[in-house]
């Protein structure tokens, strides 16, 4: 009985039939609907621009896809299609982008998007199609990985004390969960207390976390070779080796090391992809820069040990225990 009522209701109200989009009949309204979707940037009188970042490309794509049939025949249509084509390009949907761009060529041959604006430049749509085709070719041999986004977890941080002062590290918990959980655990256990930096390069980077540096009687030749009994998955994310980046060193197995990490004091792009950046120094980078200037031997081992005198896991933003 209920099903029958539902079926009759559906028939009466036309449910189940393809819904005809509500057409926008007015050019002004069509442009207003388009501008409500696409970002606007800030162009100052002093010839500067502040770009509004697009955070939801798929959302914009579906809104534009929904808008297009509604503004069919309106002056905003080719521009809206061009926007959609470029959003699809940014979403790596190159074939679909080409279809959209080709539809502009087919349906609006005399539109400015299909004209050479300057004498030496390609028409905008033609250039877009060329970019899509180039990208399709490139991707045949080159894989673009979608990496987890590295965002600092502000709820807590590791505090390390040295004779020159303290520095604090916050973690990319979501992007590299196992690496961060391991680091947090080691900090809480006091694993790093008493350890010395085993490789220091002035103003460039410092490496910490080898337990062989704790024992003064142990040969410095063993520095950099110690660690816990485990290693960690290589949880690459999109963080780069910029100043302050903290990344796990690699173990011989190719996985991330269990305890040794590098702190970047300047851009160290050559470490990108080779080590997992799992955190960032949020306070005290100047302390590390000062320490990095100590005398080291040819392998970067400090002549006088630079030790961690204390460490703790602290909740809350930097400076708060």
């Amino acid at each position, binding site marked *: 009985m209920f099903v029958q009522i539902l079926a009759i209701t559906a028939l009466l109200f036309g449910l189940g039939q393809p819904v005809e989009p509500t057409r926008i009949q007015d050019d002004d309204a069509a442009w207003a609907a388009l501008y409500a979707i696409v970002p606007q940037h800030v162009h100052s009188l002093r010839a500067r621009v502040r770009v509004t970042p697009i955070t939801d490309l798929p959302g914009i794509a579906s809104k534009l896809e929904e808008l297009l049939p509604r503004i069919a025949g309106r002056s905003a249509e080719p521009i809206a299609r061009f926007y959609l084509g470029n959003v699809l390009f940014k979403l790596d949907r190159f074939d679909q982008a080409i279809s959209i761009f080709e539809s502009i060529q087919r349906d609006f041959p005399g539109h400015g998007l299909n004209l050479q604006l300057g004498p030496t430049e390609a028409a905008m749509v033609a250039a877009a199609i060329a970019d899509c085709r180039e990208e399709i070719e490139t991707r045949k041999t080159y894989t673009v990985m979608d990496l987890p986004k590295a965002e600092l977890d502000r709820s807590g941080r590791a505090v390390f004390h040295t004779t020159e002062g*303290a520095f604090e590290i916050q973690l990319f918990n979501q992007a590299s969960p196992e690496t961060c959980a391991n680091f947090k655990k080691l900090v809480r256990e006091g694993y790093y207390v008493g350890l010395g930096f085993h490789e220091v390069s002035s103003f460039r980077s410092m490496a910490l976390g080898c337990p062989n540096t704790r024992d003064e009687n142990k040969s410095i030749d063993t520095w950099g070779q110690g660690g816990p009994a485990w290693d960690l998955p290589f949880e690459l994310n999109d963080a780069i080796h910029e100043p302050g980046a903290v990344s796990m060193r690699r173990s011989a197995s190719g996985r991330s090391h269990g305890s040794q990490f590098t702190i970047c004091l300047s851009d160290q*792009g050559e470490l990108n992809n080779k080590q997992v950046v799992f955190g960032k120094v949020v306070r005290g980078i100047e302390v590390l820069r000062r320490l990095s200037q100590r005398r080291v031997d040819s392998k970067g081992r400090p002549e006088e040990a630079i030790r961690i005198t204390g460490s703790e896991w602290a909740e809350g933003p930097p400076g708060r225990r």
Partner: protein
Amino acid sequence: MHSSDGKRSLLLIALLGLGLALPIWGQEGDEELRQEREARERLIESIPVPEDRDAVAGRFAIGGRQREVTRGEIYDLLVLITRLDGAVQNMPNEDDTWTRLMLVDLADSLGIHVPASELDNRLHRKNPEIFNGIVERWATSGVGQEQGLAYEADRMRIDRLKDFLLTNERQTTHDAFDQFKINRLLYQIDYAGFSGKKHSDALRAEGISDEDLENYWKGNPGIQARFRLPARISGTVVYLDPREYGEEEANTLSQGGTVSRERALAYFQANRERLIASIPPAERQFLTITPGTPIDEIKSPFELVRGTIEKKLALEHLIDDAFKEAIQGGFNSDLPAIAAKHHLHTIEFTDLDRRAAMDSLQKIGVAAFTQLFASNGPRMCGAVLVFEDVRYFFRIDDKKESTIPEFATVKDELRELYYELMGAEAAQEEARSIYGDLAARVATQVAPQREQLEKEANEAADKRIAELGLTNPAEQNRERARSLSRVRLEMDRLEREARPAVFEKLVQERGLELRRSPLFQFDTNREDRSRIEDPEVSRMAFFRTCYQLRAMKPGEVAPAPLEDHLTHEFYLARLVEVRDPELETMGPVDLIQARGQLQQITEARFPREYEYNALAARFGLERF
């Protein structure tokens, strides 16, 4: 706030939104606006009114459609821009009018449109008070409502055009790769090395007599300076550092005396910045309020450092008493004994130079060294001195002035230095002689072209001098120099092109052994090579940071010997190849970084692309 003030503030916001001149609050603001308006009017009066308004001022073409603009249009638009956007500091000029015309035309070509509702919102049309205020401002600037509306509509269209172009920028993987590879290009060079070591070894085998060495010593003050012995001092510092006393010890030594809050506060005020900076990170949390902080936990900076201050002040009598006793006991007082008696610490030092003092006497700060090393001989300081929380006094027992040592004491070390420096000099000479030969042969080879170019340049200069009717010799010379400077650029190019073949021939004739380096990347950071033992590793580290090589093009020969100051080696070098790294070497994180860099570059580049010069070049603007 009065209601008229309220209206005024809304109008202010609206005007700011339009980018119009910002009126300053109150009567002074009105005055400033009036002055600004007058300045604009003066500028408008200075714009020459075209005699023939219909004459063509220039033309450009966008999308294949040519647009001719008359002098009248340019004049009217410049007046309008000046009235609406002119500011004393930034008065528009004709370039701005052309820029605006080209941008509006570009927006037209692309069919960019701004709905009327958006313009209404921008001008607050739904709020008659604000809208009328805007129209009134236009009117006082001599701009009618229709004109103002059309101007604003064009401005918005330009902004939407820029939004459209900026949002639709695409970055391909190859764009990112081009950015990525900038610092990762692979270089390969051919080089011949001239080692100072070979010559030093030969000199060492030959030897140098003491007499000749002494003459070398006497004749080279620069070498003597290398051996100069720095000034050195011996003496004792007695100091009080409150941080070195535990709570209990401090209480006992303070003799039960209490430090008043006023005295502690006065000390805090006098040393405020330093004391706040000294608060350890773990305690800083008590200084700020964040959600959830119990209010009774919040402390003032003074409260946090008060304990330290009190301890310092309570112990001060120890150093004062010790100093008095040392003065009373005369110059030869037993300072360590006095210090011990008053529970103070001492640093005794012998033959300390400034460098060593940095380590030994860091407790009393570098500023104290001036006093310590200023002593001409034994002396006791005249008062208790202060460095941060440390109080101290000192006695210098002996000072040795900076001297040049006797030849006899340094001759062995000097001999080694002599071989090394002379070897380096010989190597440099060898490299220079080859380069001299190279330069001479290149010059000979390009001499006919040089003569021809110089002749042409002089003829051109003479012609220009005649055309300009220059009679003043100084002006004539300037014209000739200008003409010849263009020849120099051309000559540089010719020499650069001729050098590789001449180099090749020279290498063969002289039997030089050219070595080919492996492919290497340049490194902007110079590493400390002093501890690199392997000469090959050290050499490659030198090449990696050698900026002369980086500036060369494939096939080019370095225009001068490359000098490695560390190893005293000199190199003749030719750049063989600059190769792109493989695309696969750009890992996923590199790609993200390169894309981020491209985004930043776009933000910087984009505004420039829509400025006068770029637009004029792009759309073939011709002005008459």
